[in-house]
């Protein structure tokens, strides 16, 4: 074999190895959670209230709480993020203000989640008097996911060829009509990707909800946006570190449910996305 061919084979081998190194932890996590948590799954575990200081019964309120938080925060951040991205990518001139805004968005993405929690506590819980509630938690989580949604939406809008815009404009469409009919429909799959990423982030975050919404133990379901809820990630932390003598499969079962819930919501979004892709 020639020297170049050998080099190439080694190069491909390194690339493959790197790829495997990425996959292995994912598989290990899934295997760990499944093997240790599967036995906890039951009708009672999924759909009843916790009992015995959370050592028995189910985690239903935490599931419902996390579900509500995801829906409420996405309902807040998706429209605002998409509208902001449309403005930034389609209308805003490249000037100092736009650059400052872009910088702010990048910095927002870099702020650690516990700081968002503190921010939510001071703004929503205390200053705006929303109290420790779903609305405070959802708004905090929503602000935290805004950078992701804005960035992915902007990339999706930029990926729509300039020629589509020019064709639409040349056919007498206004700028907004062009965005509405010749840009957004083709950017939608990318926008939904941003939403999917946010769902996972929102469902899994602990620090922001710690100050703003999460209850340690609350064996009833929320009735309104101003109620507190239990949430899966916080519950996982509690059952793992705060409560002695708890069956191990309760911990891993909770983790399994959290991962499963995110997976189900993601799959739903992926199905919606592929429907839009087909419509092209």
């Amino acid at each position, binding site marked *: 074999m020639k020297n170049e061919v050998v080099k190439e084979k080694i190069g491909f081998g390194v690339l493959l190895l790197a790829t495997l190194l990425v996959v292995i932890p994912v598989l290990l996590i899934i295997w760990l959670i499944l093997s240790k948590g599967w036995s906890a799954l039951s009708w009672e575990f999924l759909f009843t209230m916790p009992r015995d200081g959370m050592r028995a019964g189910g985690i239903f309120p935490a599931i419902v709480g996390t579900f509500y938080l995801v829906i409420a925060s996405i309902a807040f951040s998706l429209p605002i993020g998409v509208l902001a991205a449309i403005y930034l990518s389609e209308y805003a001139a490249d000037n100092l203000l736009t650059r400052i805004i872009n910088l702010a968005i990048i910095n927002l993405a870099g702020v650690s989640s516990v700081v968002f929690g503190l921010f939510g506590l001071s703004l929503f819980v205390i200053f705006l008097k929303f109290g420790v509630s779903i609305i405070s938690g959802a708004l905090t989580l929503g602000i935290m996911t805004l950078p992701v949604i804005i960035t992915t939406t902007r990339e999706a809008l930029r990926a729509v060829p300039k*020629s*589509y815009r020019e*064709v639409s*404009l*040349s*056919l*007498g*469409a*206004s700028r907004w009509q062009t965005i509405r009919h010749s840009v957004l429909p083709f950017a939608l799959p990318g926008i939904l990707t941003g939403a999917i990423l946010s769902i996972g982030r929102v469902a899994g975050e602990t620090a922001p909800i710690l100050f703003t919404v999460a209850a340690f133990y609350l064996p009833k379901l929320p009735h309104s946006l101003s109620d507190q809820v239990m949430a899966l990630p916080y519950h996982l932390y509690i059952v793992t570190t705060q409560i002695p003598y708890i069956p191990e499969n309760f911990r891993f079962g909770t983790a399994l449910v959290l991962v499963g819930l995110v997976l189900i919501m993601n799959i739903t979004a992926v199905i919606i996305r592929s429907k839009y892709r087909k419509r092209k």
Partner: protein
Amino acid sequence: MGHAEKKRCDMTDRREANNSSAGQVDHPDPKIKVRELTIHYGKVRVLNNLSLDIQKNEILSVIGPANSGKTSFLRSLNRLNDFEPNIRMSGSILLDGRNIYKDLDAEGLRKRVGMIFALPIPLPRSIHDNITYGPRLAGDHDKSALDQLVEDSLKAAYLWDEVKDRLRSSALKLSGGQQQRLCIARTLALKPEVILFDEPCSGLDPISTAKVEESMMELKKNHTIVLVTNNTKQAARVGTRTAFFLMGDLVEIDSTEKIFTAPADSRTNDYIIGRFG
């Protein structure tokens, strides 16, 4: 070929920008009147003090090497230049005597001045949707009228027979030549008065090119056409008059026959016989 009409050699020199000059007798009011048009992109001047007239029902071919400003000129005629970030323009463009940058709104102007791009760009929708895109956004929702419009436009672009059975299928499935004729049909659906062709055949094979040229010759009867082309032979085939641009300057504008047989400027001759460009 239409360029045999000698009476059209109304040389529109920028020094005689006056309508009453001798060459203009047959055309007292041009469709489009460009006066002292200068365009800068940032610090780069792409068009320099351009003045010319475009007559009703003529095909004005614009030829010239790369960076001669011909596409910038074309895109100023339907104000598609508006969206270039660093553009500066001076001078005036009049459509039927009205200043397109002052007296007309851009959307209304673009319905009257249609454009065919270098590459056929069907929107990723059905053939029917592509053609009705403009009219529907303009508020036309009468289904039978739209169907009729689709048929008329496709027939005018010589595409009807090839696609009449699959109007609802994606426009992306058409061949390149068919797509370009679809783009022509789509522009025609707006019933424009002027049609701008920006190197419309640069991506097409000779047969498709011939079909597009054929439809141009037909469209000339009811439309004013400006054709920017890198293909000097195409300019010779279809142009009523031909303008030669070089580095942002209008070197020469005259009847196509004159330009291609006895150009006044040696640079025009050099370009046509292929010495540069």
